[in-house]
Each structure stands twice: as C-alpha cells, then as structure tokens.
C-alpha cells in the first residue's frame, strides 16, 4: 500500500447525472466505515444477506436474472479495461454449459501491482466480505465450484481471516481459495494471473484461447477485478436502479479512486462516476500547491494539463477529449515544482524493468525509450526524433498491452510538457521533487 495513502472520512458520492442525490444505501466505502476489516456479522448487518439460489430450473432462472440485472446496471470492469461485467459473466457461463467443457473457475483479481494505486487494497482491507460475496456470487452465476482470490500480500491475512470466517459459518456453497499475488506490475494482467496460479509464472500469455473459453487448467475462467466483484455483490442486493442512482447515465455507478501527489490528504475515495476532477481533489483535502498537470488512470494513463483537467467530469466520456480515461482510478496531481518529463522518465524506467521480458519490442524498446527520456530529463541531449521513432515501433507490438500503455504515457507527456522540451534541451529542469512512486515500499 502506498505509504501516504490513508482512509479518508466518508463523504457523499457527489452529483448524479439527473442532479438528484443518489440513493444513500451503503456502497463500497460507506459512512462510518471502521478502520479495520469488517466481520461477517457486521457486514451482514450493514448490507443484508446476499441472494441465494435454489436448485433446478428456478435457481437457473434466478441466476440468469441476476446476470441481466448486472447488465441493466451497466457495471464495467474496474481493473482498467472497463469491459462490461455482465458480458464476461454470460460468456463464462455459456462456455461452462458447453458439452465437454470443465466447470468454470472464478478468479478475483486483487493483484493491484501498480505502485501508485491503493484502491483495491483499501477495499480488501476494509470490506473483505463484500469482495468475497462478489466472488461467491460470480461463481454461482457462472456455474463455478471454486473461487480463487488472488490478493496483494499487504492484505493476504485479512482475506484469509475473512474466508475462514465464512468457512466456519458454512456461508458459501462454493469453495473459496486465497492466493498471494505475484509481486510484479505485469502480474495483474488477466492471463498473467491465470499463469501465476497455474504454474507460478506471472507473465501474460498469448491469446487465443480466450480465458473465458480455456483458462485455468483449461477450464472456462472469469478473471474479474475485486472492486467489480464487490459492485456485483451490491447489485445483487439492491438492484440495477439503485446502482444507477450514482454516476452518469452512460457510465453508471460509483468507483474507487486513488488520489496522490500534490493534495493535502492523499487517499482512496469512492466517487460517483462523472464528478468533476476538481471536486475529487477537494475531497482529498484540495491541492497542496499550484498544479501543473494531472495523470489520469495509472502508469498506462495519460497526462493532462491541470487547467484543462480540473473542470472535466471523471468519466470515460468526460476525459475522452483529453485522450485520457478513468483507467484503474488513479488521479495523480503534479505540482508546478515537479517535472512531468522527469516523472515520466522514472515511470517508464520502472515499466521497462517490469516488462515480463517475453516480447522483443517491449524488452528492448521500453529500455531504449526510458534511456532517451532520462537523457531528456537530465538535459543530456536526447534525440527526440529517435524517441518518436521508437514509440512508433513499440506501440501495439506486445502480446499484452504493457508496451502500448507505456507508449501512450510518453506520447501524452511529450504533448502536455512540450513547452518544457526546449528548456530541458538547454539543460534546465523545473523539477525539485518526485510524486509518483515507482516501487511500493516495505508493504510491497
């Protein structure tokens, strides 16, 4: 967990698209949330019991109805890719029903290998039962007999205790297993998580086959971010209409964001999607200095000029014009006395180090790009033409999106910090300190 990140006191989720206040039933990080993990009893007292499914035809219909409800809710994956959750559930359920297929497996992805992000860890540390509810429900919906929770090691014990509590209470029909995630940035990619569980190798694998068809041990596999699963656990209780009472009509619901950098209280917050970025920063105590830029999404994200960024709604729609998106919910505020080019160079060097090393263009290309960026930041005469050539050569050339994500970050930096390129060429750098963590400290 990022050292400076604290649990922030709960606040209203902000405006909805219609301007009405959202339904105030508890969401992921509700009012009065205890600092420690919530017990099963307290969890059930807060949210009520999750639905259970009877045997036979009626149970099957109820499962299909819940997938349809998740679809109506418009829930998208909160791990960064934003894929519709119901379509993934339905695909795995369909594959599992095919003759000759193994029983599906559900994997709750709590790897959160990105050093700047803490939202999954905070969720698992405070509401572990909600995540386990979601994983068990996803297993019910897809016909899986097992759910594997892959968690960052910082919260392993909390999830272990929560799972043990459910086991003793005989709460779930499905078996819940807990695994510690690999300590690598690329280890959170869906196929890498499967590879890690299966063979202890946390590298992405190539598609096809798709995980929904043949994933873990060749079984249809649902890999879903832990926050997404927690949302499913709430939609199952309160329904799609409740879920859509926060957020915008195009992007309903709430999401967790990690706010770091030049804000007074770096924290993890739950916001209604579409709340203006400036308002999110206010809830993190407000800007602690004059802001130069904001990094959106994560280390695969996009820089945006602070002047343009603060008034935008934090949603895919609102950030699209800046070429950015909510991604995995990171908002990093860059103060005027830090250097965006240097920050980018540090992050890209980290991403190059974290390459799984499987694809040549990623292994060699990111290293070359990082080197050129370091020369640029240090005013050692970088070759911008060569840098741009390499960005073009690396983009889209990996088995996973790792190299393309790094390229996107660098391209946005060259654009947003274009005025500073000349200064750096003349050997002058504006930065006095760094804001982006490139390793996650002792808790990593």
């Amino acid at each position, binding site marked *: 967990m990022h050292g400076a990140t604290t649990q922030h006191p709960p606040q209203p989720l902000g405006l909805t698209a219609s301007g009405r206040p959202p339904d105030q039933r508890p969401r992921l990080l509700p009012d009065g949330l205890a600092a420690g993990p919530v017990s099963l009893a307290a969890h059930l007292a807060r949210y009520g019991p999750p639905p259970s499914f009877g045997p036979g035809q009626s149970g099957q219909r109820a499962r299909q109805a819940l997938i349809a409800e998740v679809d109506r809710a418009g829930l998208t*994956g909160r*791990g*960064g*890719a*934003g*894929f519709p959750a119901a*379509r993934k559930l339905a695909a795995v359920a369909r594959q599992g029903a095919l003759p*000759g297929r*193994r029983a599906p497996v559900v*994997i*709750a*992805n709590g*790897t959160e290998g990105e050093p700047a992000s803490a939202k999954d860890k905070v969720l698992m540390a405070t509401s572990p039962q909600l995540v386990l509810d979601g994983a068990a429900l996803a297993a019910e919906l897809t016909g899986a007999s097992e759910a594997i929770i892959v968690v960052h090691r910082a919260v392993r014990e909390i999830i272990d205790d929560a799972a043990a509590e459910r086991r003793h209470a005989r709460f779930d029909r499905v078996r819940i297993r807990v695994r510690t995630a690999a300590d690598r940035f690329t280890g*959170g*990619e*869906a*196929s890498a*998580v*499967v*590879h890690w569980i*299966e063979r202890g190798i946390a590298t992405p*694998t*190539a*598609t*096809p*086959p*798709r995980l929904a068809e*043949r994933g873990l*041990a*060749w079984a249809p596999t649902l*890999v*879903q*971010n832990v926050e*997404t699963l927690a949302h499913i656990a709430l939609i199952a209780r309160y329904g799609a209409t409740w879920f859509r009472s926060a957020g915008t009509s195009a992007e309903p619901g709430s999401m967790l964001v990690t706010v770091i950098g030049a804000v007074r209280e770096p924290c993890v917050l739950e916001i209604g999607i579409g709340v203006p970025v400036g308002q999110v920063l206010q809830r993190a105590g407000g800007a602690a200095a004059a802001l130069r830029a904001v990094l959106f999404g994560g280390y*695969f994200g996009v820089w945006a000029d602070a002047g343009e960024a603060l008034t935008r709604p934090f949603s895919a729609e609102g950030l699209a014009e800046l070429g950015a998106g909510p*991604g*995995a919910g990171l908002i990093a505020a860059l103060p005027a006395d830090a250097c965006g080019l240097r920050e980018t160079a540090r992050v890209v060097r980290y991403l190059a180090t974290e390459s799984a090393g*499987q*694809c*040549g*263009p*990623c292994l*060699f*290309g990111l290293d*070359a790009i990082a080197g050129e960026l370091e020369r640029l930041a240090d005013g050692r005469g970088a070759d911008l033409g060569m840098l741009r*050539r*390499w960005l073009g*050569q*690396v983009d889209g*050339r*990996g*088995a*996973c*999106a*790792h190299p393309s*994500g790094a390229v996107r970050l660098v391209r946005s930096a060259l654009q947003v910090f274009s005025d500073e390129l000349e200064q750096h060429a003349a050997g002058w750098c504006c930065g006095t300190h760094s804001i982006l963590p490139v390793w996650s400290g002792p808790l990593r």
Partner: protein
Amino acid sequence: MIARLQVDPIACDGRALCAEMLPELITLDDWGFPIIGDGPLPRRLLGDVRVTVRACPKLALKISDYSERPAVLPRRFPPSAGAELDGFDEQQEHGDDEIAAQGEHAELDRG
C-alpha cells in the same frame, strides 16, 4: 478467406529469417524484431508466405483470417492430455484457417 500474416511476439526471438525471405511484407525494428504490415496478404505472395511460416525456427508465424481480429498464437497448453486436447489438435491441423482471437479487451485487462 482473405489471409493475414501474424507473429506471436512471445514466441518470436528475432532470428529475422522472415524479413530476409519476405522483404515485401516484413521489416525489422531497431532491435531486429519483425514488423509485419497489417493489410491483407496479396495472393501472389501466398506461396512465399507459406514457405516463410514453415521456415521460422521459433514457429512464431501464422496465417490467419483477415476478417477476424488480430491475434497471436496460442501459448497455453492443456495441463493433461485426453479429451481436452480436441480443440488443440484442431488448431494444429487447420492452422491456416483457424479462428483468430475474439479477445474483446483492447486495453490491458486486469479483470
């Protein structure tokens, strides 16, 4: 079928035979790894393409259907032999017209 030539970037080791055999379609990046044009394969080159695919020492090249989304070759193998191998054998035998991935995730998918 309109064909497309693809490389599995995980399998590819940058031996660069392909770029020598098919300079019309394949160039090398600054580190010696093949960049393959994204367009459909011209018919007149199909014979040469097949020879090149077979010549790759890492078996990293594949001809697939242009109408499908771009994809790379399978890397994960079934944990045990048996009934589950059916789909895999099929891919081996019908490599040329085997379906490409329908992976829906343009972004890095972290679930």
